[in-house]
């Protein structure tokens, strides 16, 4: 790509679009937002196509001492590349999902979304720790507005909760970052990833980062902001929240906590495992009894994110790769599920499960696509989530078989609540006349769900496309963690094997 600053351009395009949207009416604002996100998607494809697999660890780097105290340093590795792809892929779909659903203050809405995109790409591309923090934290402002202005009934409470919860999580991380930079003498993330912090300091630093990422992730018991935020946010807000914002926590673990504090990560492995096990079982059970579709999917997100955390803290390649794949797969699938909910919400203006039923009769195409995403959420082989969940659980099995056992029940419970949801909405009697009269998908809705369906299948059938760019980076991380990795309880070794046939025969002769 020569010296073309593609990452800066990817930041600039939505930023310019956002500023333009602020001054535009509804119609042109929608067009500008769609154009900006599509340009970014195209740039993302170029980025992926030009990413040199097996090349340098950090590619497309840009560096400028624009600010005193921290640098404008951008650059991506395979992990960041995949998450940037996820963001730019979901963004046009979000804009499309809001095309008709949002009617008031469209310009500001589109501006907030485009700003969100800038900040998400910035988080994944930042190579300077303070630049990362600025992007990470700034995301609160547009999301606060999106939930608060365009959300549902109880939006103000949800917006406050989202803002203050995540802010409290992050500020301690800032102090930890200041300490690290003071100790290591650099703000450059690749250097910090190789710097060995004193073991006793790692404990505190790890906890400070954990406070932030656990809230973002979200891990049980600090997940309570998520169902509120999801339920109150507009459809596209939920998509972006589930699709990308939740991935910031996982990205934080994989970029900061694990490589920078390997010893502390190993020491606190039990904490993460314990919280994840609780999360998988408890939130799955909570999801089972929800009457609100969005809440159900929100709780299922918490359960899926727990699989991500056990994968990350399995300290082996399978676990890390699995965690990344679950993040990508969940980004697509939960986004698609929120869209599915949004589609029927737009028609009937309720998210209550009991108001629907028998939609397979009047919305067959919808039923098929919803089925695909339900199965993907369950982790059916051939869909994206299967790959990730299998790898993550295989990884944690090597570290601790009990954790693997408990977390695997999440898949069974996941099947339970998702299929139960599907049965109640799509099958059965058509209880309400208005629900029975709903028209099937429009072309716009096909265009929203189609690409996600294709990506879900692609990721399930040929995951190598997604794993290949990340492989080298995950191996580097695994090597970094190797020294600290706790010894697993399931050290499988090949046994003696059965006696040969002769011995067998001899034995038999006795």
């Amino acid at each position, binding site marked *: 790509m020569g010296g073309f600053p593609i990452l800066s351009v990817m930041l600039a395009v939505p930023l310019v679009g956002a500023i333009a949207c*602020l001054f535009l009416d509804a119609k042109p604002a929608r067009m500008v937002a769609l154009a900006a996100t599509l340009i970014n998607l195209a740039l993302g494809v170029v980025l992926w196509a030009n990413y040199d697999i097996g090349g340098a660890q950090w590619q497309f780097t840009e560096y400028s001492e*624009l*600010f*005193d*105290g921290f640098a404008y340093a951008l650059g991506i590795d395979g992990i960041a590349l995949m998450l940037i792809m996820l963001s730019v892929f979901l963004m046009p779909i979000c804009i499309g999902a809001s095309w008709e659903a949002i009617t008031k*203050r469209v310009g*500001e809405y589109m501006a907030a979304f485009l700003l969100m995109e800038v900040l998400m790409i910035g988080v994944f591309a930042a190579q300077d720790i*303070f630049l990362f*923090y*600025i*992007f990470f*934290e*700034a995301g*609160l*402002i547009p999301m*606060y*507005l999106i939930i*608060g*202005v365009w959300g549902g009934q109880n*939006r*103000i409470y949800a*917006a*406050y909760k989202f*803002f*203050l919860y995540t*802010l*409290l999580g992050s*500020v*301690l991380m*800032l*102090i930890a970052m*200041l*300490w690290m930079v*003071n100790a290591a003498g650099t703000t450059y993330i690749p250097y910090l990833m190789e710097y060995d912090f004193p073991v006793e300091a790692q404990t505190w630093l790890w906890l400070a980062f954990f406070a932030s990422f656990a809230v973002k992730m979200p891990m049980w018991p600090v997940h309570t902001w998520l169902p509120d935020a999801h339920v109150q946010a507009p459809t596209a807000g939920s998509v972006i929240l589930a699709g990308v914002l939740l991935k910031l926590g996982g990205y934080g673990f994989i970029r900061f906590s694990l490589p920078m504090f390997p010893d502390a990560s190993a020491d606190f492995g039990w904490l993460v495992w314990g919280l994840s096990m609780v999360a998988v079982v408890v939130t799955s059970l909570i999801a089972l009894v929800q009457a609100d579709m969005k809440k159900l999917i929100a709780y299922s997100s918490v359960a899926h994110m727990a699989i991500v955390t056990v994968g990350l803290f399995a300290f082996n390649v399978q676990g890390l790769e699995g965690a990344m794949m679950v993040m990508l797969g969940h980004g697509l699938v939960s986004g698609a599920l929120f869209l599915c909910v949004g589609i029927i919400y737009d028609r009937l203006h309720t998210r209550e499960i009991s108001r629907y039923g028998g939609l397979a009769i009047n919305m067959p195409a919808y039923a098929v696509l919803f089925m695909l995403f339900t199965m993907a959420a369950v982790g059916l082989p051939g869909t994206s989530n299967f790959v990730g969940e299998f790898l993550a659980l295989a990884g944690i099995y090597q570290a601790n078989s009990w954790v693997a056992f408990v977390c695997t029940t999440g898949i069974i419970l996941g099947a339970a609540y998702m299929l139960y949801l599907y049965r109640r909405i799509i099958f059965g009697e058509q209880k309400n006349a208005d629900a029975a009269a709903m028209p099937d998908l429009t072309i716009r809705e096909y265009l929203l769900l189609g690409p996600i369906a294709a990506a879900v299948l692609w990721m399930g059938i040929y995951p190598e496309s997604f794993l290949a760019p990340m492989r080298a980076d995950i191996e580097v991380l695994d090597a970094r963690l190797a020294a600290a990795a706790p010894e697993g309880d399931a050290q499988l070794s090949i046994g003696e094997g059965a006696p040969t046939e002769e011995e067998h025969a001899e034995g038999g002769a006795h």
Partner: protein
Amino acid sequence: MEYSTSLALLAPEILVSVSGLVLLLVAAWSGDKSARFISIAAAVVLGGAFALVAPSVCTGAAGPDTVAFGGQFRADAFAGLAKLMIFAASGAALVVAPRFFGRAGAMRAEFPILVLFAALGMSIMVSAADLITLYIGLELNSLSAYVLAAILRDDERSAEAGLKYFVLGGLASGILLFGMSLTYGFAGTTNFGGIAIAVADGLSTGQLFGLTFVLAGLAFKISAAPFHMWTPDVYEGAPTPVTMFFASAPKVAAIALLARVSLEAFGSQSLAWQQIVIFAALLSIVIGALGAIGQQNVKRLLAYSSINNVGFILIGLATGTLAGASAMMVYLAIYVVMTIGSFVAVLLMRDGNGDQVESISDLAGLSTTRPALAWCLMALMFSLAGIPPLFGFWGKFVVFQAAVEADLIALAAIGIAASVIGAFYYIKIVKVMFFDEAVNTVTGKSDTPHWVLLAICALLISPLGYLLIGPLGNLADMAAASLAVAF
């Protein structure tokens, strides 16, 4: 030292005081109809003083060349940087005032002159290198400020604010004088350099008492908790341009003065005052945050916000390092911009009759009725809350960086965690403006000078402000360094 050299170092103060006296005579003979002319003239004078001070800041003036009148007065880069902020903030007050008072028919010629004398007092304060100079500057500023608070003679609240400010200010001055006399008694000198020598080998009990009372008196002036009680009442009662002035310039002056007393006179005994400053800092952050939550009036809310911000500034001082002093100056500069911006936004809130609207509930739905004002105010609020990418974040950032570098991790962690409480009421204003149904109270016409000032402030605290980090940090570092080579 020759008188001519000393006088040359005092050039900005001489300019301000002579023109202040001349303008006073003009006002006395031509009455209130010359108010407009005097305002402009005063602004020009402040601009001139600003230009006179600027070179010493840019070159980082320090050392014995900056000492005037045998060590009573110091025109170094630290004082210079504070003076730049003081003159700029006073100038802003002069710009917004005529429209405000003009609408009430109460634009008096005294206003710009009092602002000039207050600025003069503050500029003496920040340059003071002797307890006596300190007191002269402080009182010159305070006496002007008492009158300014009560300048709307027909308004009960204004008179009440002035009286409250006067009584409590007088009490604080008394405490300060008591501390100064104890210090003098036990150190044998009023000169900061002399005090530094006297306390070099440990504080005696008398000196410790002196230090404590001096700090208490100054804490009152910067409205740090637990000496903050007067702030919300005075800020609410005083006319808005005056409140804006109180919240910006005198804060800069008193904090710079506090830093100089602590770091120069008692620099060798930093352990003695550090705990006092840490206590005041944390208490201010918490009280500023909790007190603001229930407020219905924007000006009272901003008063608590200023208490909260003083807490963060004091964290920079609490480090007792030059990096901390530099961080403090950076924070102050950003704080002045944010404060001026917020109060200008308050000034722009007017109902159909042109009357000032101060209740938070009247802001409801401002984003649909007055989008530009709402977006600017939102940026200011997020900036005050210290949320990146707005520039207010950088102020907190440098202060906490200094605290971490000085190994005050616990202070930094508690301080920043408490800042989340403060974020609650800032985002509450955003909530009222953006989430609530419009009440359409704020319909009054706005004045161009106000808009220009608000636009400048909004631009400075926008992410573009980060481009200033380099130069600003440089100036602050030089200013802090000039403290180090004191004597």
